[in-house]
């Protein structure tokens, strides 16, 4: 749930998503859902010569389960805040 929130704060930022089929796609994060499915706008495939399959695709929906990495813009992630929130959530969980 925390990571879902992190992604929500990153909407309209440019991110790079690496898929488990070795496709890397850069685009503007438009939306995320609870499964971490991702909607990207103005996409660009990294190695376009090798992957011309997506030439005519400008925005896409990526299934959360096939994402290997998401490269985030470091300046837009408050890691200190995230650490604190993680600790708080862990503490809450152990209380329950």
């Amino acid at each position, binding site marked *: *749930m*925390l990571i879902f*929130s*992190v992604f*929500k*704060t990153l909407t309209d930022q440019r991110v790079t998503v690496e898929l488990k089929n070795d496709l890397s796609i850069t685009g503007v994060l438009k939306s995320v859902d*609870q499964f971490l499915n991702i909607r990207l706008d103005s996409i660009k495939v990294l190695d376009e010569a090798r992957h011309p399959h997506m030439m005519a695709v400008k925005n896409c929906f990526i299934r959360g389960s096939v994402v290997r990495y998401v490269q985030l813009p470091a300046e837009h992630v*408050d890691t200190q*805040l*995230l650490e*604190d*929130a993680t600790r*708080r*959530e862990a503490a*809450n969980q152990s209380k329950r």
Partner: protein
Amino acid sequence: MLPLSLLSAAQNKPMLVELKNGETFNGHLVNCDNFMNITLREVYQTSADGDRFWKLKECYIRGSTVTCAQIKYLRVPDTLLDSVKEEQARAREASRSARGAGPGSRGGPCLYFHALPRI
């Protein structure tokens, strides 16, 4: 149109079901459920390499093993399309009123999100 509505509308229609292991089953849909478990009748089964064939009177396929179903010659009656649309609208309405209880009402409080300064 919801995938499951389409599948139930395809009852008694011919279809080709492909499994994750590459085998295909060509037959008429007898029944299906919400997990997409399927029963077919008068089935031609084809191995993944396409080399071997079997004829089955009837078979049951577990939904979790299915890749996709190719529905052949399906004529969906307009009335069904309308009822499906109504059903979807009703479901959307229901989920909206459930969410109306306020942020964080589902899945526990969302600390990170709320802690952020509003820009």
